[in-house]
């Protein structure tokens, strides 16, 4: 009989793997190796390190996306270099936490800024907004699974990607 802990651990393992890997050819993984680097830094002294950094990242997303939206809202007088510098910031922080899709979008977004492509920028902004929120929801689910495992008396499995 499958215990609750074993079930939760299996769910956790499967979900983690799905976040890193391509499920279909057109769907990129949400996370890359840098997220694994982040996990390495979590220890007994800082047991919530990953959650804290990830939380900072999502706050950063909100702030930067707000900046970009405001800059793009200046119809007829858009400062593309301002948008570009926010995109650069976002690329930096998404790269630091392993947010693969957000980082990928930032590359395209930067190109649109450099070529002053307004429609392109607006599209990228919408996509980045969707993407970070999607990742936020998925990581929240992952953290919830971790908590459930611990509450059920189990150990969080080490998942090798």
């Amino acid at each position, binding site marked *: 009989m499958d215990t609750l802990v074993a079930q939760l651990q299996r769910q956790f393992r499967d979900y983690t793997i799905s976040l890193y890997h391509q499920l279909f050819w057109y769907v990129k993984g949400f996370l890359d190796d*840098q997220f694994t*680097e*982040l996990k*390495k*830094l979590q*220890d007994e002294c*800082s047991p919530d*390190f990953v959650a*804290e*950094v990830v939380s*900072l*990242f999502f*706050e*950063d997303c909100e702030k930067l996306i707000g900046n970009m939206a405001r800059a793009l809202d200046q119809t007829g007088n858009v400062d593309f270099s301002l948008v570009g*510098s926010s995109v*650069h*910031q976002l*690329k*930096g*922080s998404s*790269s*630091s*936490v*392993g947010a693969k899709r957000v980082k990928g979008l930032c590359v395209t977004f930067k190109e649109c800024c450099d070529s002053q492509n307004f429609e392109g920028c607006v599209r990228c902004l919408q996509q980045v907004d969707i993407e970070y929120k999607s990742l936020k929801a998925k990581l929240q689910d992952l953290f919830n699974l971790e908590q459930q495992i611990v509450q059920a008396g189990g150990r969080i499995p080490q998942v*090798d990607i």
Partner: protein
Amino acid sequence: DSENGVPASFKVPAGVVHKIFSYKSSVIFCCSQERKIRREMADEVPSLAESKLTALVVDDNFVNQTMHHKLLDRLGIQNDVVCNGQEAVDVHCSGRNYDLILMDMEMPILNGIQATKRLREMGIESKIAGVTTRANEGDKKEFMEAGLNDFQEKPLTISKLLSILHRLDFYVQT
């Protein structure tokens, strides 16, 4: 050529080895003569004893600040964090000094290139490692010429930080 996966050049003479840690597939040699640490990457990072090295993180992004601070912490390197090149200059003007400075390139008020130049002009001889996501050859050259000792592309990892320390000949005491 190697023995047990450790390159022959990393071997130290018998009797000179101060401490050896074996952790999964990683081996750390501490030679009391040279006090140099070399390591192979392991799945998990063992905590190193306090190294008595000091570092300054210069970056305008909170996520990066947190990451770099923690990476240095993990290697036992006491570190301070500032938000831009101007603050990096100011903290030195106030009399603080560091063995290593991790300098981001793009920052407001005073960027990494300007800050590095200013620190060198002030006579600061600390090792400065430029860290940036923007790494085209022109930018890298300009940054290096400002007075860097090393350059590393972000995002930083434990292994990249160890490479920096190794290239800058930093000895970590145990």
